[in-house]
Structures are given as C-alpha cells and as structure tokens.
C-alpha cells in the first residue's frame, strides 16, 4: 500500500502531458506551420541525458523548440543525424538558444539529446523531476519561382 501511495503521488507530481503545447515552448515563427505528431512531453531529471529518435520526412521545413519549466536553465540540446552521427545542431554553440528551424532535403532520422544543466551547489539534482517539451512544427518547403 505504501508503495502504491508512493507511485500515486509521484505520478501526480510528474504529469507533463501536453507540456510541449504550453507557452514555454510556443514560438511565433511557427505561424503557418503544422503541428508534427512526433512532438513530445516527458519528465527528465537534472543533469541526466534524455534521448529520442525522430523521423523527419524530406522536402520540408521544420522548427524545433525545446522547453522546460521556469527556473531550470540552461537546457542543452543537440540534434544528431542518425545515419552518420554528425551533429546537425548544438545549442551550446549558440548561447543555449531553445529554437532552431531547418529545411530538410531528404528524409532523415535524427536523435534529439536534451539535458538540463545544473552546476554543483545550485540545485540538488536528486530533488527535481522536470517537464521537458519537444515541440516540432513542419510545413512543405514553399515553391520559389516557376515550375
């Protein structure tokens, strides 16, 4: 019973359902884009790497916006091409920018790696479980010029 109580309370405190749709992840640049089904909300621990694998169809523009709850910064993320392990984008090289847009010519599988970085003495990593949102929007690459 005590175990049930633990899981019940733990479960309640970790409800991150729909977090990726929250204002924390919203970007006005997404206007005119569609919501991608593979967007995700989850719970992560501080200083612990979260990995997910996403299929991105080709000939599309994408916007990735990663967000977490207020007060938990920086959120470090990388987008890695699964076919060759090349890093497509690392926000540590871009002042921990939470958003990146890209145009993808060919269908590609990418791995998104995300981690909330906390320095020693700042917050006790063991005490926190935080919502992470991976919001993804897409649109077909607009045609330019004549056919």
């Amino acid at each position, binding site marked *: 019973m005590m175990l049930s109580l633990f899981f019940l309370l733990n479960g309640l*405190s970790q409800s991150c359902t729909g977090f990726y749709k929250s204002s924390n992840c919203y970007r006005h640049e997404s206007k005119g884009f569609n919501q991608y089904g*593979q967007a995700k909300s989850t719970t992560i621990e501080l200083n612990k790497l979260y*990995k997910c694998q996403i299929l991105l*169809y080709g000939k599309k523009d994408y916007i990735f916006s990663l967000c977490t709850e207020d007060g938990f910064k920086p959120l470090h993320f990388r987008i890695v091409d699964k076919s060759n392990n090349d890093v497509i984008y690392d926000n540590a090289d871009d002042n921990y920018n939470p958003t990146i847009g890209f145009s993808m010519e060919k269908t590609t599988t990418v791995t998104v790696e995300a981690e909330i970085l906390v320095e020693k003495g700042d917050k006790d990593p063991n005490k926190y479980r935080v919502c992470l949102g991976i919001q993804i929007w897409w649109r077909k690459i607009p045609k330019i010029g004549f056919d």
Partner: protein
Amino acid sequence: MNYSLKKEHITNAKHIALCVVIFLILTQCNTGNQKGNAAKQTDTLLKTENKDTSLKTANLPILTAKQRDSLSKINFMLPSPDEILSEIIPAKTAFNSSLVNPRNNIDSYLGTKYQSLNLGVYLTDFAYLNLNDQKNDALEYFKTVRDLAQKVNIYGLFNQSMYDRIQNNLTRKDSLGEISKEVYYKMLDILESAKRNNIYALIASGAIIEALYISTMTVKNYTDYQKIAEKIFEQKYLLDNFSEFTSQFDEDKDVRSVLIDVIELKKILESSPNQKTEKKVLHDKKDHIIINGGEEVILDEATFKKFKDNIIRTRNSITNAVNK
C-alpha cells in the same frame, strides 16, 4: 497551460490522493481497478505464455544485453497513420473504400495478438477515411477502434467527450485529422505508461502495415504513380526505426513474429539501388539551417512489385486471421 497553477492543483490532488489511499488501507478495499487488474493479468499471462525460448531458430538477429540496454535509453517517436498516409498519398488521389478492413471482421479476432494488430489496422483505416472526407464511415470505424481497444483493456481514452468532439467536427477535415492523431498517440502513451510495450508494438505494427498496404494499393499502374512509389521506398527509414524500437520486445513471441515480417519488408525496400550525395549543413540565417544531400532512392519496378506482393500477404495475414 499555467504549470505553476497546475502545481497548486497537484498539491491539492496529493492531499486528496493521500486521504483516498488511507481510506483504502483502513477498509482493506478489495475492489481495486478491475479493468486495470484484468489488463495486468492478461499481459502477465501474455508475457509468460509468449516468452519465446526458441530465439536461436528464428531468422532474426539476437540483441546483446548491451544493445538492449542502449535501445531502452532511447525514446522512439513514430509518425501516426495519418502522417504516414498524408506523406505518401497526394491529396487528390481517388478514395478506394475496398482497401479498408471491413468492420464486421472484428468478431473474428479473439486472441490478444490479432486484436492488437487489427486495432492498429482500424486506427489507420479511421485515419484514411478522415483524410478522404468519409465522415459517416469514419465515425463507425471510430466505434470499432473503441470496441477493439476495450477488448485489449485500453480504457480512459474513449469517453463521451471524445465521441462528442468527433461528432462536432465531422465537417472539419483538419480537426478530424488532429483527433485521429490524438487518439493514436494517447493510446500509445497509455500503453507505454502501463509498461504494456508488447501491446504497444503490436498496435503500432498493425497501423504501419495497414498504412503501407493502403499506400501501395493506391499505385494501380507503376509508370503513372512514380511519386507515390518513391515515397513508399522512403518508408525504409520508418521501418528501420520501427524495427529498432520493436526489437526491444522481441522476447514476446507475438511481437517477434510480426517483427520478422517488418524486417522482411524493410530488407526489400533497402535492396533498391540508391544514390548518395554528401550531406551538408549550411547556416543560412539566424536560427535556421539547411540540410542538403543524403540518400536518393532510385526507383526499381521489380523491387516495388516484390514489396507490393509482400505487403499484401502480410496485411492479409493480419486481417484474415480467424479465430486465432
């Protein structure tokens, strides 16, 4: 949504939950969630009965403990049936009602394996009907999805409000598409949270196989439908991701048997010739990059025919399962 506000609600909810649990302890309540227990029992039974002890005999690579551990640390996101169909089939392609699995087949699916696989099939059919504005049929297929979901003990999703939302949005194609996606992902979330990954893998298998079946059957004439064929060839990436995800649960006999079919389909698509160009990542403006190059599929009619024969056989083995 205001998550700070939500935390206050959560604190209140914790107090309420605490009272409820204490009440349950005091009264030694035995009337727990019977549906949940039934689901647990069914899956426990499934895990015990379906544990495949003949791994060496099957034509599948056996994962090492290290590989299994590494895969378990990755969360695999898979496109919904709605997204797969929209990606492959152009919007103006004629609808073909004969492609969906007839609803009355539902009564012939008795075992968990075929109930789960065909739940995936019907989810894709629901998406296909929505995409083609077949509103009344879509509603009927939604009921079929609901009925089959209950048979595999998935509760908490098909409530009256969801049903009302569908009825209220029957005239809005985009809204129905969103609902279709929502149903699919919520169902998988429920199963993932309940650690019912074998059922998750079976439902997703049925959904993907049906999406590839409908797409492939749309190609009536290879010469005139090359764009669709090209998109189908590109689904090797989908099958690759999916087989990687599913391989974690290959100790389950049912999952393993479907995984063999999925890998066979993937191998056919991968056997098609392709042309690789070096990938280049260009930062063209602030917060935007362009990724050029990669693998270009070279269309091959013989490979397409082989894939078509195989997907028809695989799909029909799922939908024509009687009393299994």
